[in-house]
């Protein structure tokens, strides 16, 4: 099996060095960069945002305490995110939240790709589109990137099961690689892709509904 851990970069080691020397600006930069993703990670395992915030706070203390033991065998952020994930997992278990993948991933009761869009066994082309999806080509770019459109995407993501929301945020908003997400969230390659697929498909579906609404108004 391939080792998926990325080693700490020279930049990571320099950051650790500055932290050990007590550089406050470096620490605050680290907080700025990682507080929000850490909150996303914690939120997957615990019941409320407030509890997630406590986990992150605890994780920062754990990170500081562990810094002297950081040996650079993974990237700094992978190491940091594992700390927050472990704290939140423990906390979630204490809260009595069981965290099997199937539960976190969101149910299939409302699949983001609706089977009803496709022809059934008795139709001419089983599995083929009943009607093609609307084209977005005719929609002006200004409308696509409008604040209102982006706001709809944001609320679609907020409405996703936590784990799907975490994956799509880390991948598509923060621009992480799949490997970084898998390491931080402790997911298999397949599960990471399943979550991403469900999340993106759901967001596309809600975006399509929003854009179509605008067309009918015309």
């Amino acid at each position, binding site marked *: 099996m391939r080792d998926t851990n990325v080693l700490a970069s020279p930049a990571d080691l320099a950051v650790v060095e500055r932290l050990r020397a007590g550089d406050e600006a470096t620490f605050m930069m680290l907080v700025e960069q990682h507080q929000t993703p850490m909150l996303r990670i914690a939120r997957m395992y615990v019941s409320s945002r407030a509890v997630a915030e406590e986990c992150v706070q605890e994780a920062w203390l754990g990170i500081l305490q562990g810094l002297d033991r950081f040996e650079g065998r993974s990237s700094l952020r992978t190491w940091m995110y594992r700390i927050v994930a472990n704290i939140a997992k423990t906390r979630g278990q204490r809260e009595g939240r069981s965290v099997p993948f199937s539960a976190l991933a969101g149910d299939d009761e409302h699949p983001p790709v609706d089977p009803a869009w496709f022809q059934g066994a008795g139709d001419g082309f089983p599995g083929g589109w009943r009607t093609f*999806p609307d084209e977005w080509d005719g929609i002006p770019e200004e409308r696509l990137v409008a604040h209102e459109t982006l706001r709809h995407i944001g609320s679609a*993501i907020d409405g996703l099961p936590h784990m799907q929301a975490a994956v799509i945020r880390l991948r598509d908003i923060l621009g992480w690689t799949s490997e970084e997400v898998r390491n931080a969230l402790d997911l298999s390659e397949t599960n990471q892709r399943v979550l991403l697929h469900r999340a993106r498909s759901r967001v596309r579906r809600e975006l399509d509904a929003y854009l179509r609404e605008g067309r009918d108004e015309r």
Partner: protein
Amino acid sequence: MTCHEVVNLITDYLEDALSVDDRVRVEEHFSKCPGCSGYLDQMRATIRLTGMLSEEQIPEEPKRRLLEAFRTWTGD
């Protein structure tokens, strides 16, 4: 490969996680099926637009507490 199957393989396709055979079959399907290639374009647009969102800012209070924690830690 049906349209329903292709649509559910789109993320695997975009993540370059398909076998060579499946990749060829999916690409052949896209080249012949306006419904699926249109859907693929929508998925790409969704990813692009999602990328334009920004994550929320951190409130000042937790930051202040963290700075205090850091000062305590360096003072140890």
